[in-house]
């Protein structure tokens, strides 16, 4: 194919990605100005089946890395982070729409926190006591 130099350069993967990001409005930009209302039931399906978030965050979103319950991010911050994650262990998902992420966020908000205080868990309390004793030993 006989392409102008500029077009060929644009098709190089790294350059092409940059141009697309610059030219095509992201789902977040498409939804700018309106804060979607999430559907928790739909969010549960998206979390577990569509996006397979459980693989890193645990089936209940609270045993993995990073823990998502309690969900302390505000909705807007959550959407921005997931679409643009700079972390190597968390893929950025620019194609996830604000509505999709609002649904997941709403689902995360419904998950009850299962974290009794350490003092109410004899197993952990005992480990912490013994760890502190071991660390204090000379």
């Amino acid at each position, binding site marked *: 194919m006989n392409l102008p130099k500029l077009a060929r350069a644009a098709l190089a993967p790294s350059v092409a990605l940059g141009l697309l990001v610059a030219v095509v409005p992201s789902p977040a930009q498409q939804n700018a100005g309106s804060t979607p209302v999430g559907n928790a039931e739909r969010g549960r399906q998206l979390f577990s089946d569509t996006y397979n978030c459980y*693989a890193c965050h645990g089936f209940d979103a609270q045993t993995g*890395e990073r823990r998502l319950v309690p969900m302390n991010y505000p909705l807007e911050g959550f959407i921005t982070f997931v679409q643009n994650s700079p972390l190597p262990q968390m893929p950025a998902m*620019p194609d996830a729409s604000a509505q999709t992420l609002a649904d997941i966020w709403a689902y995360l908000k419904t998950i009850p926190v299962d974290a*009794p205080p*350490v003092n109410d868990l004899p*197993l*952990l309390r005992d480990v912490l006591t013994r760890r*502190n004793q071991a*660390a204090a030993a000379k």
Partner: protein
Amino acid sequence: MAKRSESDATPSVDRRKFLTGAAAGAAGAASALVGNTSEAQQGAPIARPAVARPTEADARKDFVPPEPRVGASFIEHPASDHMVDVLKALDFDFVAVNPGSAFEGLHESIINHGGNRKPEILTVLHEEAGAAIAHGYAKAAGKPMMTLMHGTVGLLHASMGLFHAWCDRVPVFGVVGTPRNPTSVINRPHSAQDMGSLVRDFMKMDDEPTRLDVFAGIAMRAYTIGRTPPMGPTLLVVDSELQEAAIPNGMSLPIPKLTQPAIPQGETGAVREAAKWLASAERPLIRPGKLARTPAGWDLLLELAELLQSPVDVGTYGSWQDFPSWHALYGSGGPDYKPDVILGLELNDMVPSLRQTRATSGKTISICAEYLSQGHNIHDYGNYTDIDLAIAADAEATLPSLIEEIRRQSPRDAARTRAARRAKVAEAHKAIREREMDDARYGWNSSPVSVPRMIAELGRQIQNDDWAIVSGHQFTGQWQRRLLNHDKHYRYNGDSGGFGIGYDTPASVGGALAHKAHGRLAVAIVGDGDFNFVGAGALWTAAHHKIPLLVIVHNNRAYHAEVMLVQRTAARRGRGNDKVDIGNVIRDPAPDYAKIAQGYGVYAEGPISDPNALAPALERALARVRAGEPALLDVVSQPR
């Protein structure tokens, strides 16, 4: 150790009487075969045909002498007997064997000439399991084990296990039989022009003695080279005809004394310079890799850390346990600790350390045996780094002189400044500890079971035992070190080294075999992915040889690390994440690991999804292990 199974030990019976009796007993026997496995595990008696034992007179009457084999000759002194004498001189306790015609001479000599003692045969169901068992055994026992393999096919099966031993710098003594002059359509594929080349990229040496009088010297050389740091597996190729030939009359076959070379220590001037930097450092940090070859290495690192009051960062994948995990100095010193001198001990990749010290104009020291010898193909030796002081030597052997030099060069007020450093580091580590315990409580009652809950339940039940974790930590994050006090050098046997799955279960059997001699309680936490390689067959070896070991299958029903990787790629390409489980999950149907283990004669329970059911199941399984047998629990777990 049991030499024969119960069924093997059943006395011989008159064949004709047995056949008559067998018909009557067939119904009972058949019902036993198809019976409920849980009933079988509860100790229901096995139905046996009613057969009278033959008398001596019956036996004589029925005995028909075999026809003499045409051309067969009687060999009074087979060469393989001498080979076994050499193996005895190398002090092997065990040899892993999956039988093969290429080493039938050696096999027969081990059991008859050698009396199946030192080495004793450990029957394995796959050569990869045999190599992994030898790998795990060597780390726990502190001495190599032998694995005996069939020509080409056996060696290729074993290759993955040998590769892990190479990457983990662990000596495994491999012997492969080869039909040098194959005579049939069956054994031609088992012969090779250069057998060692099949695995040479990850063996420290391989050699093929072509004459019996050089066998002993080559075997001794393979053994000593394998044990000289950087350690690794070695291979002897032994022609089957050479094994089976008669020792010529009058041939003298002396067995040389085993002389293990002294381990190389660091050059005096370089050690003195390293000591100078460390003695005057304000914020030293020690990073051990595969340091503690022996218990002495553990003690020396503890001595060095306490002398300097330096934090010790074993890293995420510290392959061997080198430092007590509940010690005040265990860790990186906390987020505000900016090291000005980092000491790497057998750490073959110093890049992160170099980056860290460059940011603070600090110095980096490395003492590592890998400067002395590296492989030529596998890229497992880390990147070249322009660190400030590199010492080509074994770190464990160098530590005594380094410690002595640091004492000699320490300023007068060192004790006071170092005590202050320890207090700061201990305070930072205490905050980290509390945060870790806080993290552990999330999902405490979740079903499937959370990883911290699984390990904490285990910890409570073994805290009064002399326990040893014989599997790797790779798939349970840092939870084992956080929740189990690794306070002895043998508490943790390390990861595979090569980061391939399939190591943990068989290597755990090897580790447990070594710990059995010391009466230690061996426990393995293995991934379901790992178990599915050669793990089930390795469990049979544990059952057959009465090796006590608790295997907990951390069953998250997927290769979850790979789910995340495919997610990342799919997201980069904007193709959605709804299909990333394809090729990554192990369900529909979900394997029943308890039933698989029961089928191999091992006590097992599961699948266990309810966290409250875990403690009683652990109690029952541990009772079996403490009584001397293997057991398995299939625990359905959270992905992370």
